[in-house]
């Protein structure tokens, strides 16, 4: 319910990313408000058990809320999530792994 509410709140925002959950999940919104596939959810906790904040901030992602814009092209080019999600440092972003970020509904 909270997640659904958060998604609705996100859809109303024009910003690229909004922090929604207490555990630090970030649900992205898509330019134009599309929801298919579902906008990506970044699980902060999963990264926090493996990395210190300064591993990614501010070199890979700025700290400021709503300041992060990510495209699949960025990821393929080794930027943003693609810095690690490249099949070497962490699992690769492929058509086999879509729903790890874009949750299936």
């Amino acid at each position: 319910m909270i997640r659904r509410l958060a998604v609705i709140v996100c859809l109303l925002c024009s910003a690229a990313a909004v922090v929604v959950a207490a555990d630090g999940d970030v649900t992205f919104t898509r330019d134009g408000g599309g929801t298919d596939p579902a906008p990506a959810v970044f699980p902060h906790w999963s990264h926090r058990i493996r990395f210190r904040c300064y591993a990614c901030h501010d070199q890979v992602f700025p700290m400021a809320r709503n300041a992060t814009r990510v495209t699949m092209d960025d990821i393929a080019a080794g930027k943003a999530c693609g810095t690690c999600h490249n099949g070497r440092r962490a699992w690769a972003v492929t058509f086999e792994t879509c729903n790890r970020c874009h949750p299936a509904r």
Partner: protein
Amino acid sequence: MLRPIATPGVIVMRWAACTALAAALAGCSAPSRKKLVNALFDGAGAPPPTRRLRRDLLQEIDGLKRQVAEQEAVTAAASSAQAPASEETAPARPIEAAKTWDEAAGALPKSADDGSVDWDAALEQGVIAPQPGVAPSAAVQATFPLDIEMVPESDPTYRVVFQHAPHTAWLSCANCHPAVFEPKRGANAVSMESIGQGRHCGTCHGPVAFSQDSCVRCHRALSEGGP
């Protein structure tokens, strides 16, 4: 005669003394040799290094450089061994096998104050071993021990001691300074209002670090029964 003629015995004694001194100088490390030479020559400033001293010092520097290089190689090997190259490699900590937040949260230590996840304790107890950088060779930064006490004029019971040490285990200086906090005493008007607006401490506390409802985790005096 102004100078007595040296007898063979005296000559032998002098040679023995010189040899013993030379052996002592050659046998000890460069710093103590320097001290010894200074003591013998009445400490009148360090004598200019002899060719031999210079050679020994250079050798010592080379040795230290080699040690540093070896240590760096060991550290780099250790961090690349920890790096999760793929899902096939075993996780560095059991918690890294968690698939959901509930699963992970179950394995993380909790604060005695409010039962929420205590990330600092998780780090201290080694439940998690978060890496310091994207590059496997990245180094953990040193923590910064400065405490800053903030006492509100209205009621000192609500004083807060901000500890840099646990924060710098996670964050670099540039993560907070100067965008979130001016690095200057008295330059930041921190209030519960500003925190509630997502500024100052509220930049992280609430969205990603422990909640703003965990009063006593900052306002320690509230749980200790007075200032």
